[in-house]
């Protein structure tokens, strides 16, 4: 047993103050360990003493060994039984605790070598939590593990989609925000680029972007299909909807509906469009114009498939409550079938709110009776209107005051809207917040664009290189062999440039 232990603890986290040569050394160590673990009789040997090993291994110092031992153990416990989970794996079980311990405290650098096993472990945790109908137990574990592996969370993996689904099932929406607020910008791609043949960065090194280790072949993600990323953004939007952050939800839905297509439209996109219509009514009070990245035939398909929604939006925009009611009642079965009944009901509520807000544009003061007459669509008692206005004022949506008159015989209540000028001092704080948020996003996007440019060979270095090689080929007296040499040296130049940035 001790012999195993000494073998397994041969690798400890590197100190990351290292020079490239140290890094390569470390890389070699890890690869040796992996070869050791991969030996054919190893699984049975290790799983037999797994109890002792798991107690003695530190999940941070020896993450890789810990993970593989746990993996072997789980495999032996599960056996061939794919459908039923054994008790040990379920929450509260022995292996569940070990798994959580690892996921909360692994070393992100070591784990990069075992993407496949890591993902299987996470999937198992999600599955186990759902099997005992306690999805909440897995939410924060999975989230922390994801952020531990990739603090920027820029690259979409299948784990992301599974996590969003889990959050929705657990109804713990705000727990997903740390993931959603980091902006997904990339997808795992094949590392098939020319320079990477010459310059393969070590997996364990410090990298600027998680793109370098979250690649197509790393195993951190299943093979993605378009459904996965559409689902991720749709789920994200649904989480924002549940939290009533309409603006963010609208952004996520815009991503869904403007997804690039080849001659066809996904049903997820149509679902996204339906929700997009409702959310834009809720968030902006009108149908915002389509993201112009979506091509016209896609928009046409949406419009044909989501007729009741566009009709409802039309009625909403025309401020015609009767028509809204008619549209809502006429398509009740459709709302139910699409599971959008909740949103539709919120749209109905948002209408009277919006009408009241509109009054602020027209009037600077008016009686409550006038509010009732102008804003609400059916005869409502003054008390109801008063409570509606009061709730709007308190929520900060409406900048107004209500004044009760002193006279006993004249019981009118005045609603006085504050002028827009007086608002400025309140805005300062919000403005700051918004600037900070947007600058963060701008930062992320800017950096990602840089990476994408490199990936697509659109960066300045590439253009310089192209320019040079064109000059060479224009020169007739040089032989073709010579030109090839030059080309190779050109790649060297580029390689150096890329090397600087890593």
């Amino acid at each position, binding site marked *: 047993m001790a012999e195993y232990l000494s073998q397994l603890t041969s690798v400890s986290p590197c100190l990351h103050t290292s020079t490239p040569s140290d890094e390569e050394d470390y890389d070699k160590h890890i690869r040796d360990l*992996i070869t050791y673990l*991969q030996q054919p009789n190893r699984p049975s040997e290790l799983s037999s003493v797994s109890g002792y090993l798991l107690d003695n291994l530190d999940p941070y110092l020896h993450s890789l060994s810990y993970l*593989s031992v746990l993996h072997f153990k789980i495999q032996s416990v599960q056996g061939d039984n794919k459908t039923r989970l054994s008790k040990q794996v379920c929450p509260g079980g022995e292996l569940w605790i070990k798994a959580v311990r690892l996921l909360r405290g692994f070393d992100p650098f070591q784990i990069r*070598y*075992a993407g*496949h*096993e890591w993902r299987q472990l996470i999937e198992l945790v999600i599955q186990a939590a759902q099997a005992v109908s306690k999805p909440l137990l897995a939410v924060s574990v999975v989230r922390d593990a994801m952020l531990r592996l990739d603090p920027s969370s820029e690259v979409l993996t299948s784990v992301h989609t599974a996590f969003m689904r889990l959050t929705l099932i657990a109804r713990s929406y705000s727990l997903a925000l740390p993931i959603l607020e980091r902006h*997904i*910008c*990339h*997808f*795992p*791609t094949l590392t098939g680029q020319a320079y990477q043949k010459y310059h393969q960065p070590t997996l364990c090194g410090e990298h600027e972007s998680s793109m370098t280790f979250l690649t197509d*072949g*790393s*195993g951190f993600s299943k*093979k*993605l*299909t*378009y459904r*996965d*990323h559409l689902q991720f953004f749709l789920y994200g939007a649904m989480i924002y909807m549940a939290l009533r952050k309409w603006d963010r939800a609208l*952004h996520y839905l*815009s*991503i869904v509906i*403007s*997804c*690039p297509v*080849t*001659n*066809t439209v996904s049903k997820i996109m149509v679902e996204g469009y339906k929700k997009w219509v409702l959310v834009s009514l809720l968030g902006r009070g009108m149908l915002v114009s389509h*993201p112009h*990245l979506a091509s016209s035939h896609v928009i046409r398909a949406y419009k044909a498939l989501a007729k009741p929604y566009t009709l409802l939006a039309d009625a909403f925009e025309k401020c015609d409550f009767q028509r809204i009611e008619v549209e809502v009642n006429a398509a009740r079965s459709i709302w139910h079938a699409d599971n959008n009944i909740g949103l539709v009901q919120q749209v109905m509520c948002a209408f009277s709110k919006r009408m009241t807000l*509109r009054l602020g*544009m*027209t*009037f*600077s*003061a*008016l*009686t409550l009776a*006038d509010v009732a*007459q102008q804003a609400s669509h059916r005869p409502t008692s003054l008390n109801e209107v008063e409570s509606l206005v009061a709730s709007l004022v308190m929520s900060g949506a409406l900048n107004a005051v209500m004044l009760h008159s002193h006279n006993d015989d004249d019981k009118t209540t*005045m609603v006085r*809207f504050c*002028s*827009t*000028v007086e608002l400025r001092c309140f*805005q300062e704080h919000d403005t700051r917040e*918004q*600037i900070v948020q*947007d600058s963060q*996003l*701008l930062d992320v*996007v800017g950096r*990602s*664009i840089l990476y*994408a440019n490199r*990936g*697509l060979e659109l960066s300045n270095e590439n253009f310089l290189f192209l320019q040079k090689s064109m000059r060479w080929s224009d020169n007739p007296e040089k032989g073709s062999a010579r030109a090839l040499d030059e080309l190779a040296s050109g790649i060297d130049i580029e390689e150096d440039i890329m090397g600087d940035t890593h």
Partner: protein
Amino acid sequence: MDSMPPDAFESHPPSPYAGQIPGVINADLESLNGAVVSTSPFVKVDDPPKFELESYIANYIGRTKFNRLFLIGSCSTYLSVEALKAAIVEAKSSKDVSRYERAVRALAEVAPYEAEAMLDKEWVDRTRKVVKAETDRLEHELRGYKNNLIKESIRMGNEDLGQHYHQIGDLLSASKAYSRMRDYCTTPSHIASMLFKIIHVAIERGDWLSVQSHVQRLRNLQSKQEDQAKNQPKMSAALGLSQLHSGAYQEAANSFLSTDPSLGDSYNEVLTSNDVAVYGGLCALASMDRNELQRRVLDNSSFRNFLELEPHIRRAISFFCNSKFRPCLEILESYQNDYLLDVHLQRHVSTLYTRIRTKSIQQYVVPFSRVTLDSMSKVFASRASSGQAQPIDSKSPFVQELIGLIQDGTLEARIDLEKMVLVSNQADLRTDVQTAVLESLSSYVKEAHIRLLRTNIIRAGLEVRQLSDERKQSHTGSGAKHPRPPTGMLQ
């Protein structure tokens, strides 16, 4: 026949006059020409107008006389019998049978027992025969001229034919005949006269696009200075008319304002100087601000000649310039009936009046930061409701009108129903700019994010594709994968 110039009449299909204000405007003249017989009148005017029918209609000559009489007859309940009788007399003096029939039918509806309400069958048959013979004769002659290949004769033959068609009310053929003259015109004056004839027919047909294009052609014509000067007033008037009908009131005002007073009564087959004054004045009122009105209308020495003919328009404009909106609106209101019985103005009166009224309200509010609703309603509320000093509340029509104006963004103000004042909005430019900047920032960032994702989706081959495509792809994908060892720790 084949030598029809490509830019002639055919290039403007007659029925849908694209680019004009909704179909209604076209209906009036079309219906007068018999194309749409059963159109009910656009408005009914019950009160007597201010003008004397006989002296009014005496100002006009030619076919417009009948058109105007018929319009008055069908729209004014007060003058209908008198006007329709005059229209019947007018129609009978010409050769247009369909006009006569229409006038008789209209009269029969209003006053079935009048002697004129009976169709004079004998006249109709006789006139038809005469017309047919005349048409045959002219066409025959034209054919003869064509065989002889004498340009001047062909031109004149076409002209005669066009004139004849025009007289009998076949405007389409008239227009075609006139445009065929084009190839045989030798002098600029010929071309000018041909264009004028086409314009005349087009005005009657309500083909305003063709009026505009032909006026343009007329303007580009190289002709002598004095000819130009002679043609200018007619050209401006025709252009103004077409712009009025297309709803471009500002341009119409400009055209009418630049009409030379030498127009006199030379264009009475279309419109009189009085009409120029009224059309120009109303369009200017509806589209120009006070400074412009003062400078370009009241101080305009040539347009003054027109305004003198219609002194009330002049008074209305000067009241407007002096910010006396009540008398201005009152004058306009008192003449509304007259304008509703004008063949060209009828469809536009309400639009023009609303614009003038809205503009007055806007102008009235400009100097105030807050103004009581009471004083405003004294100026703008209609007489009937303000006869007794009615208390203003949120339900009075004037306040409703204000609410409408604020909601559609014409009036930058808010109503205070507690103190009964209209408070003008103070624009806070700094905040506006800040909000705009923040908005553009966030929309930029969002779009950049979407575009980036789009690029990366395409790069990773994750576009939405058809199921069969996808299967094919995944098939080849897995096929390629097989020789590779399973992923995981092995890398």
